[in-house]
Each structure stands twice: as C-alpha cells, then as structure tokens.
C-alpha cells in the first residue's frame, strides 16, 4: 500500500514537471503540456483521495464519473489542438472534436445538463457499456480524422504540381514548334 502510494506520487510528480516544462516552453508542445498536467493532477487526486474511487454510495459515484469524464474531455480537447498545431489535423475536422470535447466538459461541470438525456433514454443501466464503446469509437474516429487530413494535404500537393507541370509542358511545346 505504502509502496504503491510512493510510486504513484513519484509518477504523477514526473508528469506534472514534464507538463509544466512543455507548457513553459510555450512554442513547443504547448497543448500537450496541459494534457500531461491534467493527467498528473488526476493521479495526485487518485493517490491522496483514494476514497473517491472506493465504495458504492451514489454521491461519490456521480463525482467519480464527473472527474473521469472531465479528464477525458480535457484530454480530447488538448490532443486535438496539439494535432492542429502540428498540421496533423485540419481545422475543418478539428472543429468536430473541439465541440465534442467542449460538450463533454459542460456535462462534467454541470451534471444536471445530462439529466434530461438520461430520463429521455433511461440509459443509466447501459451507461457503463456505452462508455466503453463510445471511447473506442472516439479513438477510431480520431484516427480517421488524422488520416483524412494527411490524404487531403498530399492530394493538394500532387494536384498543384500536376497543374504547374502541365502549363510548363504546354509552353515547351509552343517554343519547340515556333
């Protein structure tokens, strides 16, 4: 128990230091730094407030879900912005991810906002499974966004090059004939 606490604290300290360093450099991996800081803080909470992750009383259950949801959505936001910064994702696709992240953040901060959805669908029972499937789909769709952006960039370059070459060939032909 003691060893586990020390190990986890050390790990979260490493993450926090790493995150602060990345963010302080500012021009480099600015958003990724915030993601690491968030993970570090979450681990500190997990180490020093373990009761949050024990027991089955409904109040702590909701709090726990809000914490996890908040962390996940913040990570989605930061990783998306980092991908945009590195030109790995186009803004047109990033908008979807940013809005998803923002909606999840809102749900984490104001749990009442999700209340009407729950009463509408009666989804509490399925929520655990939904969560897992949802997370998986998020990862897959994220991957698709990255791949699509890369393809579009490549296609653009090829397209411009082809057009430019075509014009230069036409000019060459003209000089050869003339």
């Amino acid at each position, binding site marked *: 128990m003691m060893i586990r606490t020390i190990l986890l604290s050390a790990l979260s300290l490493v993450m926090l230091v790493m995150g602060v360093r990345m963010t302080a450099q500012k021009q480099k991996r600015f958003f990724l730094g915030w993601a690491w800081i968030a993970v570090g803080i979450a681990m500190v909470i997990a180490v020093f407030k373990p009761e949050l992750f024990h027991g089955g009383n409904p109040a702590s259950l909701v709090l726990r879900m809000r914490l996890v949801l908040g962390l996940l959505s913040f990570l989605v936001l930061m990783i998306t912005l980092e991908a945009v910064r590195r030109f790995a994702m186009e*803004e047109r696709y990033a908008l979807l991810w940013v809005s998803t992240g923002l909606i999840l953040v809102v749900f984490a901060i104001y749990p009442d906002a999700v209340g009407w959805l729950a009463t509408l669908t009666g989804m509490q029972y399925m929520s655990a499974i939904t969560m897992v499937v949802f997370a998986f789909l998020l990862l897959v769709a994220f991957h698709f966004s990255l791949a699509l952006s890369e393809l579009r960039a490549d296609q653009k370059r090829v397209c*411009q090059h082809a057009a430019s070459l075509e*014009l230069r060939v036409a000019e060459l032909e003209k000089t050869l004939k003339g």
Partner: protein
Amino acid sequence: MDDILKQSLIILPAFNEEGALPGLLAEIRESAPGADIAVLNDCSLDHTAAVARKHGALVLDLPCNLGVGGAVQAGFQYAFQRGYRYVIRCDGDGQHPPSEIPKLVEAMRSGDVDLVVGSRFLENDRESYKSTALRSIGIRGLAVLLTLICRARVTDPTSGFQMLNRPMLTYFARSYPLDYPEPESLALLRRQGYRFREVGTRFRARTTGTSSIKSWGAMYYMLKVGLALLVDRARTVNPRYARHNLIREDL
C-alpha cells in the same frame, strides 16, 4: 510602374467564371500593361480554362477542386518557380476592379512592405459594397481580433485583393491555409516577421458567380478561422521562412 508590372504575375482564381473573364482580362491589360496573367481554374464545370486561353491568359488547370486557398497557392508556387518578383491577386469574378491595381503597385513601391491588401472599408466608401448585416458584423469582429493579434490595423480581413513581393511569395508557396485563407494568412505572416499594409480600394458587386461564403457557411467560417487563429498562437516560427532570412538570401 512599368518596371514593377513587367516582373509581376497577376493571378485570378476562378471557378465557373467563363462569363466574367473576357471583360476582366481586357480591363487588366488596360490597367496593368506588361504584367503576365494566369487564370487559376479550380476545376470549373464550365469552359473557364478554354475561354481564358482564348483571351491570351496563362491557365493553371487544377485537376481537382482545392478551394480558393489551394488554387491561389498553386499560383504562388508557379510564380515562385518562374522567378516573378511580384504577384498580384485579383478574384476572377470581377469583384476587384483592375483599375485599382495601380494603387497596390504604388503602395508596394513606396512602402517597406511585403504584402499590400486592398481594403474596401479603409476609406469611407461603404456604399459601394453591399453586404448582409450578419456578414458585416462577422467581418468587423474578425477585423478587431486580427488588429489585436497582428498589432497592426486591419479593416478588411477577408479581402483577397492583394499584392505580394518575392520573400512573401516564397513563404506562401510553402505554407498557406487551405480554405478561407485570408485572415489566417495575415496572422501567419506577422508571426514570420513580414509586414503588410492596407490601401483603400473600391470594390464592385460581383458580376457573376456566388460568394464562396454562403450564408449558412458564415458560422463555419467564423469557427474555423477562430480556431485557426487560436492555434496559430502556439505554433513555432519557422526560421527557414522568416522574413529576415528570405530577404538576405534573395532566392
């Protein structure tokens, strides 16, 4: 003015503009004699390319539709490869009157600038340009935001009526936003150390075609540009393409 125009390429991004091009090309020859003209045909569905060729323009015929940003960048790349010192961009729909090109050229000659932007809002000439309320609010908001980001006055952030010199061209040939490029490119060029200046120009109501920003797309436009401007703040400056390095090398 002739010496500058002789080293210039005028690029006209065009999508389905066969109706407007003949008149526009004639006007350009009259107002900007000596400059080469290239029509950037962004995969039009009509005979834009054939009409442009018939009226003596160079045609960059893109095999697939890239949007304004991609088409204009293709023009920049061509101009860079062929060694032009200046590029003047003027939309193929006749919105930007060629008779105003001398104003851009004069500003480029006299000022220590890399990019000259023709602004329809700089002089009190708002009557000449009609617009919906929502759009003008959007443009105003964007102008204020960009003025803050660039630390230089921006009145017409969406204007595509521009003239750029070779260092600027070198940078834009390398990196230019794909759709709705104008506001983001202003923020980008400032970060790389380039300078821009606006000059007041008249705009015309478009003669043919439709705006690339449809009414429902205004929302997307604002969100996309907003996100791009936000993320640009965290991007690294690429020293290879910074102004002082390109000026020194004079590629």
